[in-house]
């Protein structure tokens, strides 16, 4: 039990929140595409270019914020290419996603070699990392538990605040509703005159935005460096989460906390002298087990409910849609 005490404490929980943030950001991004009916295996690559260009931007401008903006811009370009090929050209999502991941890996290494003359990793060169936000009053309020809410980099807060925002988006906004309908019943969306193309483009770009933030958090968050393939499968873990959560933000959060914990726990096990190679498999094994254990359930589809709420929303500004009156 003593070992357990040393393993599980405030520091571990804080570390869990930290390691959860990047995977949560990218998974929430993927939530948009999942809800819009796109299987986006390209998250890994978007995250990786986000991480690389965030470092590049940070070096060029000397500002962490500009670095984050650069990372997001790069991820958006990848997301746009994904959308053009998958949505407009109707190419296979898996093929395009995998190719973009491979492209991201090769491109970042090639650029690293061209710009910095090195392979492996970029450290130093004046990379400006994200500052840590000390919430005033956290210490008075929570005492020794303060590290649970204070002292994180801004993107950690962004990640966790994004969860309720996404819930609101899906349930209370027109865009969220459109995304869900396009994903669940594209024929109905088409019949009602919703542009599937436009909605899917929007979802892909929102996804790129969040994946870029996730990447920036990887390279400018707690360690300020870029390493070859530093996203190391987080994008794929996010896809695993999306599969069994069906993109629902709260379930995504639960899945990401599980992986964040596995990640933090494996880092901690390493300091206890367990063989690093075995310990490093823990997050992937957890992801696989969760994927297998949860996938035997059929994915719930709330088409009828969605159509109902959409009809209500549309009847506010349009006269009742005749096409929607035929529930099967």
């Amino acid at each position, binding site marked *: 039990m003593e070992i357990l005490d040393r393993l599980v404490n405030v520091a571990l929980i804080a570390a869990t929140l930290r390691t959860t943030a990047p995977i949560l950001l990218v998974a929430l991004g993927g939530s948009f595409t999942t809800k819009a009916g796109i299987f986006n295996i390209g998250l890994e690559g978007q995250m990786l270019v986000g991480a690389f260009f965030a470092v590049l931007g940070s070096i060029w401008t000397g500002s962490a914020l500009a670095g984050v903006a650069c990372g997001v811009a790069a991820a958006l370009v990848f997301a746009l290419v994904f959308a053009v090929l998958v949505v407009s050209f109707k190419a296979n999502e898996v*093929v395009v996603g995998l190719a973009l991941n491979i492209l991201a890996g*090769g*491109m970042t290494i*090639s650029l690293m070699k061209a710009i910095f003359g090195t392979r492996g990793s970029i450290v130093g060169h004046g990379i400006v990392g994200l500052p840590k936000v000390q919430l005033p009053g956290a210490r008075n309020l929570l005492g020794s538990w303060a590290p649970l809410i204070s002292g994180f980099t801004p993107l950690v807060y962004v990640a966790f605040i994004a969860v309720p925002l996404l819930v609101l988006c899906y349930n209370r906004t027109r865009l969220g509703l459109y995304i869900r309908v396009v994903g669940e019943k594209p024929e109905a969306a088409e019949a009602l005159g919703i542009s599937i193309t436009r909605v899917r483009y929007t979802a892909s770009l929102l996804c790129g935005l969040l994946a870029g933030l996730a990447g920036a958090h990887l390279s400018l968050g707690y360690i300020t460096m870029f390493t070859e393939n530093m996203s190391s499968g987080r994008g794929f873990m996010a896809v*695993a989460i999306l599969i069994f959560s069906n993109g629902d933000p709260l379930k995504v959060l639960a899945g990401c906390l599980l992986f964040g914990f596995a990640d933090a726990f494996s880092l901690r096990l390493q300091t206890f002298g367990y063989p690093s*190679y075995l310990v490093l498999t823990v997050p992937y094994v957890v992801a696989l087990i969760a994927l*297998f254990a949860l996938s035997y359930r059929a994915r719930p589809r709330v088409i009828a409910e969605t159509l109902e709420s959409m009809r209500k929303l549309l009847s506010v500004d349009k006269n009742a849609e005749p096409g929607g009156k035929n529930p099967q």
Partner: protein
Amino acid sequence: MMNDRLRAVSGQIIAVGAALLMGAVIILMVGESPARVFMTLLRGAFGDQEKIAGTLLQTTPILICGVAACIGLRGGMFNVGIEGQLFLGGFAAAWVGFAMPLPAGIHTLAALALAVVAGAAWVAIPAYFRARYNTNEVVSTILSNYVAVLLTSYFTIFLFKRPGGWSETPPILPTSYLPEIFTFSRLNWGLVIGLVLAVGAALVFRYTKWGYGVTMVGSAPKFAEYGGVNVKRQGFMVLLLSGAVGGLAGGVETLGVHHRFMEGFAPGFGFDGLIAALLANGSPVATIFTALFFGALRNGSLLLEVDTSASREIITVIQALIILSVSAQVLVRKRGDSQAGERRWKF
């Protein structure tokens, strides 16, 4: 019929050309001359007989992995875990090679057999869940790659490390070597194994009932089910077979080239094989040519790092661009159907 095939091939070639053009732009951005890079690649791949043998040596694992991917793709399965199966197969073969003295010939066969078993075993769980519960095989096989690579590193470094050596196992016994074809190169009979596999797979798909069933399941699962094919069982078998061939690729690489297992011993061959199979549109025979193309790129890239300032990863960029432009070809296929219509990759 022939006209269709001609059009398909010319489409792929145009797509490859477009990708090379985009690659040229990226090479310019990286600050090199595209002409110089492409010439160096060509010289590095086919400059003299040793270079050609080197290209064929690089082609071998890509071809075998490509056949593994083709088997999956034909049955409608994306086995993205070939990389992991390759690593486990490679380790398994090395283990038989250094730990189990056997007579020459039998030793090689035993090592290859265990490589096959290791590859199949590694994909068995994802395959089972895919067949039984429709668990997405793309994600499960990708994630299992990371576990496989770390696991083989663990075996190598913590359990079987060569005393005083790098992160590698002891060398395998000469009785387990895959014999070399020429004296001037390490090019070995693995290439022949790859060619036989590719042609064999093509024949199986073309002429056997089982192969026909696989192709049917891959292209029209509902139809196949009505036709009396046990879709679940067949999906499982297809992934298992694909994994077995992936494991074999690792065994061939260990027994023919490295003669030991080392950490990170064959990075990227599994993915190259998948890309080669995609470019070949799932045809094992066409994969021979696409694998040769990628083998040439790989071998040429060795010279690239010596003679130019470009990184050898530029070839990864070119490969990815090729697949992207091939996938965009739907542009020239049909237009005007419903946006809600199903997107599908044709095989």
